[in-house]
């Protein structure tokens, strides 16, 4: 119980990311099916994306009059009322009231790269299936071993 209160509940989000990441890593290492390996890679990158986005959340800390709900800690968008004033004087914006935009930008990038990588990975898998009639790793290896002089320049 002490361990639960001390180490798990305050860091609950990190525990979830680590568990999701372990699921993805397990699929990537253990599964023989190439599609399942790709799904594992996707799950793995999802864990990283969740981790980064949660790092950007900002609850404001000891901001003056820091009532909960007064900060916009989950979004990095300047409110409309403040925007006109802030365009002349940047110091009117208290950066602690907003989420950190940098993890959002980096993860937008990571999502797009993830989709592109997944697409290329699926294309390679389809190509392997076309040539070997299988997406099971051991079957493909057996076929390669059985026909070492296979013509590959078709």
């Amino acid at each position: 119980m002490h361990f639960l209160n001390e180490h798990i509940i305050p860091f609950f989000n990190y525990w979830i990311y680590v568990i999701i990441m372990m699921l993805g890593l397990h699929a990537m290492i253990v599964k023989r099916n190439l599609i399942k390996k790709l799904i594992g890679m996707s799950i793995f990158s999802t864990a990283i994306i969740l981790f980064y986005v949660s790092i950007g959340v900002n609850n404001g800390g000891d901001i003056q009059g820091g009532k909960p709900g007064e900060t916009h800690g989950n979004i990095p968008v300047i409110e409309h009322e403040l925007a006109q004033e802030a365009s002349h004087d940047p110091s009117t914006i208290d950066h602690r009231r907003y989420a950190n935009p940098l993890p959002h930008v980096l993860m937008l990038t990571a999502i797009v790269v993830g989709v592109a990588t997944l697409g290329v990975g699926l294309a390679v898998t389809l190509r392997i299936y076309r040539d070997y009639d299988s997406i099971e790793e051991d079957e493909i290896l057996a076929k390669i071993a059985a026909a070492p002089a296979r013509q590959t320049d078709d």
Partner: protein
Amino acid sequence: MRLFGLFAVLVTGALLLYGVKDFPHYGAADSPANGGIVPRYYLENTMKDARVPNAVTTTLADYRGYDTMFETSVVFTAGVAIFAILRVFGGDRNRHHPDSLRIRGDQFRIIVGTTSRLLIAPIQLFALYVLAHGHHSPGGGFQGGVIIGASFLLLSVARNLGESLTRLPEQRFFTLGATGVLIYAGIGLLCLLLGHHFLDYRALQHVLPGVSPEMARSHGILGVEIGVAITVSSIMFAIYANLSTRGELKKGL
């Protein structure tokens, strides 16, 4: 192998969980990520520099514009790579086409067809909204482009792939993809030719009439986002079309 894999995963997870106790609490304002000077600059100056309330858009397309430009190139390259790996012309005569891909239940076809026909136009309109409203709310080129691509996917799932290929033929995939990257890099080059740094959108005040340097940055951001959206939408559909038909672009869903 199985046991070894499980062991490796458990060791990795245990090490990570051991490190978790040194991490900042959820949403802590004094965490290293939130305490840095860089995000602070982005948040405080996004209105002053570019008149864009959404700090993510400013960071993405202006402060870190190089990153996003090559990001767009990555998407384009992925499309070209999938084309190079998968595409076959003329079809493989040795391989029979399984017709089992055909969805059973033709009696529902009219419902699905009508619903998708009603939905596709609002989806594309919403995509343009997401694209243009990225300055003020979550959105931008990548998101808008993906939604446009999704509308083509809906058309191919609801009708068939040939129907969407008449709207967006294969020859246009890479023309459009390259056009998007070219718009992005071209705006950067235009800034260079107008005497500023590459991708310094303030230079656009010389070509856009009656625009302050800050608004020129805002319009520059919109311009590159449009380029990103064009690339992403066409390449997303190209990836789907090639993957769903094993590179033959016929007889697919």
